[in-house]
């Protein structure tokens, strides 16, 4: 009987190794291990053995069964692996064909720039406020200490509204300063991005509509040094940490002292190039301490409080940063232009 078991094992080994498909293996399994299989039949006849032989033969018979089961399993796995390999080979594709398009839309470069500027100032504690674009002469000029005869008030410079007394399209975002002073509690720390309008015929560097970002801080003990530090921190974030700031004295009606702010050229680092027109510096901001007349209009006690304000042209920053050479491109909205500002 032991010999018979050995024969079954040897035959099975040979048959299984020759099997070429899952089906053949399954057939062998049934033939050997199935209810009517060879091994099953042999084991059924074990009852005829002497009682003392039974444990020994039983043990061998179990070993044979386990061996065969293992052989079948291994063969099955081998065959499956081969099949998978074959199938995957057949399913190979051309990976160089372009993917199915899924993309974000592109933000307008003016929005990109405003968002970036806003993000920097918000991280420095500035809140974002808004004001109307159709403004009064009071907020746009009078309250900002603009001289009554200032040329910027002329019809040749400022758009005025029909059938309304002293109403105009704001020429700057500065009126929001006064609105904020009148509507908010002190201290104030805000920026206000938005559209402005001036009577400029469009050309490569002029647009009758443009954007500014205004900034205003009013608190006890605000100094010119604070203005300097704030703008310095801002330009370092906007243009890179090695950017330097230079404040030059200038004149604006609504600030005193006033400054124009240059940054070291972020393209050439200050050596002089086409972007900075060889000077190494680029003017990007107007700023100063808020003129007491403006604070007074806003009901602020100028002996206790002081403040600084600044304003910058968004188009100018965007043109410098992205080297856009024609401001009109911003308002043509050619998709091939906009899609470059993702």
């Amino acid at each position, binding site marked *: 009987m032991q010999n018979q078991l050995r024969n079954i094992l040897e035959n099975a080994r040979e048959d299984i190794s020759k099997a070429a498909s899952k089906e053949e293996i399954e057939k062998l399994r049934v033939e050997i291990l199935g209810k009517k299989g060879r091994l099953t039949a042999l084991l059924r006849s074990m009852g005829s053995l002497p009682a003392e032989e039974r444990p020994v033969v039983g043990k061998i018979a179990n070993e044979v069964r386990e061996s065969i089961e293992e052989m079948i399993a291994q063969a099955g796995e081998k065959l499956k692996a081969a099949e998978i390999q074959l199938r995957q080979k057949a399913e190979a594709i051309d990976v160089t064909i372009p993917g199915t398009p899924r993309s974000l*839309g592109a933000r307008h470069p003016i929005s990109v720039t405003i968002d970036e500027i806003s993000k920097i100032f918000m991280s420095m504690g500035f809140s974002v406020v808004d004001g109307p674009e159709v403004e009064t002469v009071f907020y746009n000029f009078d309250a900002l200490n603009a001289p009554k005869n200032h040329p910027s008030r002329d019809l040749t410079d400022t758009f005025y509204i029909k059938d309304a007394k002293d109403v105009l399209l704001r020429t700057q975002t500065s009126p929001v300063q006064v609105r904020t002073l009148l509507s908010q509690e002190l201290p104030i720390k805000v920026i206000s991005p938005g559209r402005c309008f001036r009577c400029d*015929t469009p050309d490569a560097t002029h647009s009758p509509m443009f954007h500014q970002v205004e900034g205003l801080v009013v608190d006890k*003990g605000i100094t010119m040094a604070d203005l300097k530090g704030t703008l310095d921190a801002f330009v370092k974030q906007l243009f890179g940490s090695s950017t330097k700031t230079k404040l030059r004295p200038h004149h604006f009606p609504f600030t005193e002292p006033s400054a124009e702010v240059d940054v070291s050229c972020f393209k050439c680092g200050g050596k002089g190039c086409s972007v900075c027109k060889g000077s190494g510096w680029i003017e990007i901001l107007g700023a100063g301490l808020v003129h007491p007349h403006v604070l007074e209009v806003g009901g602020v006690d100028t002996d206790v409080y*002081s403040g600084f304000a600044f304003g910058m042209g968004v188009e100018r920053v965007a043109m410098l940063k992205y080297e856009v050479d024609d401001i009109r491109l911003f308002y043509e909205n050619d998709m091939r232009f906009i899609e470059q500002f993702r």
Partner: protein
Amino acid sequence: MLVPISWLNDYVDLKDIDLKEFCDKMVMSGSNIEETYQVGKGIKGVVVGKILSMEKHPDADHLSVVKVDVGSRTLQIITGAPNVKKDALVAVILSGETLPDGKKIEKGMLRGLESDGMLCSFQELGYEDKVVPVADKDGIILLGEDYPLGQELSQALDTCQDVVDFEITPNRPDCLCMTGMAREAAAVFERTLSLPRPVIQREEGDVKDYVSVEIKRPELCSRYVARVVRDVKVERSPWWMQNRLICAGMRPINNIVDITNYVMLELGTPIHAFDLGMVKGSRIIVDVAKEGEAFTTLDGAERTLDEKSLLINDTQRGIALAGIMGGLNSEIEQDTAAILVEAACFDPDGTRRTSKKLGLRTEASARFEKGVDPNLCRLAADRVCQLIEELGAGIVVGGAVDVYPREYQAPTVAIRPGRISDLLGVALSGEEITGILTRLGMKVTSQKQTLLVTPPTVRMDLPQEVDYVEEVARIYGYDRLPATLPKGSNAGVKTQQREREDLIRDTLLALGLNEIQTYSFVSPKGVDKILCPPSCPERGFVRLINPLGEENSVMRTTLIPNMLEVLERNYTRNIPQAEAFELGRVFLNDIKTEEGLPAEPKKVCIGMYGAKEDFYALKGVCEGLFKELRILDVEFVQETENKTFHPGRCAVMKKGERVLGTLGEISIGAAEQYNLPQRVYVCEMDVNALSELADLEIRYKAIPKYPAIQRDIAVVVADQVQAGQVEGLIRSHGGPLLERVSLFDVYKGKQVQEGCKSLAFSLVYRNPEKTLTDGEISEDHQRILKALEEDLGATLRDM
């Protein structure tokens, strides 16, 4: 303001400071510089020559053959200059030399005769046409003084001059002259300022015997100084004066005019000189003109004045437009025998008004508009007389008529060194501040905690303490101030409105749309093009008084026309597909804010065209946006009356009764107004409504524990029955277990009868408390099918 450095050195000694250092420090003290350049640069190989003889060229009428002595030799030169004459001293460029513009002069033959060198004009030597002396303007240079023959012209005329072009801000009219800039330079470089102190050697007679002055409108003319010069000789000014005028951007004319211009540039006070012989009645009357009065200015133009225009009159007529331009009737001529020198001070606003009204801006009016110090008038008149004497241009009559009813005194302002330090963020002592202000020519006295400061009268821009903060800061140096950050640590926030606008923009970007930005002012025709009816709210325009053109004459009331223009532009540029949005303000004249200003609500407009676009692509974008804003149950109601849109492909979006906006395909009629493909899909929504309805508060809901049962049904309905109706009916009859209804197929074709369509819905039932059985939902399901059949005449189709 053009400042020749050599001229500036007359008043402040800067010879040891190089140009770059000068410019850098002037800029950092507030005198910004537009540019620096050299006048008369690159003149080389040009020498002084004398015309020995001249003859007509035998073969050319307009050419002359001249023999020119250039010191070492005599050259034959062929010239076409009309003003060449024998014995004249001229500028000769030698053969082989190069003109400043790079043109090389070669010895050569001209119409058969040798020409060795060239006689030069100022223009050929690189001078701007507008500054070339009148005498030399139309020909070659004729030198007015003696120079050694053969001397380099650059040496003879001291041509190469550094000129700095300063940008003068409107608050600093005192800097519109050499002495003004010298005062700044003296403060910056801590040098002594020396101003002209005119002394006239010989005066004859008394001015009172020649002229009297009356100011009838003292509010428009605060001072009038008149001096008289007789035995006048009108001729060319000496070269040194012409050279300075040229470098400062003015054309030399004759000695009298040049001197008045010179003194204006030197002191900042405009001067006018009248031909005294033409001043009728020997009397000057300063008064306004009569309404409609005609007056011819010395540029030959006849101008119509009004009763606000200030006029200088004699006893019979106007003779000068005060502070703007003289009259032709009293102009200095070659034969003028005596002149009246006027140094006056006219009102800035009045001058500006008249100058603007007449469209006549001059060097004089530009200065009066900004304000001129009346205290300079006498000095300026004296300085003119001194220069006339010095140049031998006439005999000065003694004394001056000086009508000056109220002397201007500079206000003394009390300033607090402590406050200045507090505002600048740097501790400055009273002594330091006094030092800085003294350098600027101010008188400073100390009084307890304050300083009393009186500026020079030319500084009319310093009425209060804060003005001195700037004076101190700019001379101290902005670059020396520390850089600090304001104290306080509040976080920056955005308004909820802005947060939501950002969310709308971000969502539309995430849905693949590009953002555009268009002009806020538009053509009123835009609403015609999109076929808005005659009396729609979109026609309630905010209109501009002074637009750049009709195409920018009203504020937009809708973003749709701009969107269509942008799509049109892209389409005509052969961009096959575009998906875009704009979020921006519209302006409604008929709705006013509390302050009475037009309302400026924000809208968001979406526009798309291209092969893959259709109504549902646009609707999908809208639905994506609603999903992100968590605005649930938005209804799309068919809209057939809006002419902008295709009547069969347009819907109004509503949440309850609130209208969110309209979407659809642009109507054929509207699309034809633009160069657009026919299928363009546009949507405009109200940003306020979106942001108010947005529900951004997130509350967690448990994920269902028990399985759902899904039943798919297909119903055949008439074509005119909308899917939305069917869905609504299913929902309203579904009972509480019906969790979700979704349309997954619309079919028309062979298996469905003509005029009908098959709509396939998937219905999901769930009980959140337990596992559902088929039996539990069969009643609900049957109720739905019955309702569909009874209410819509639907028949069930086998799936």
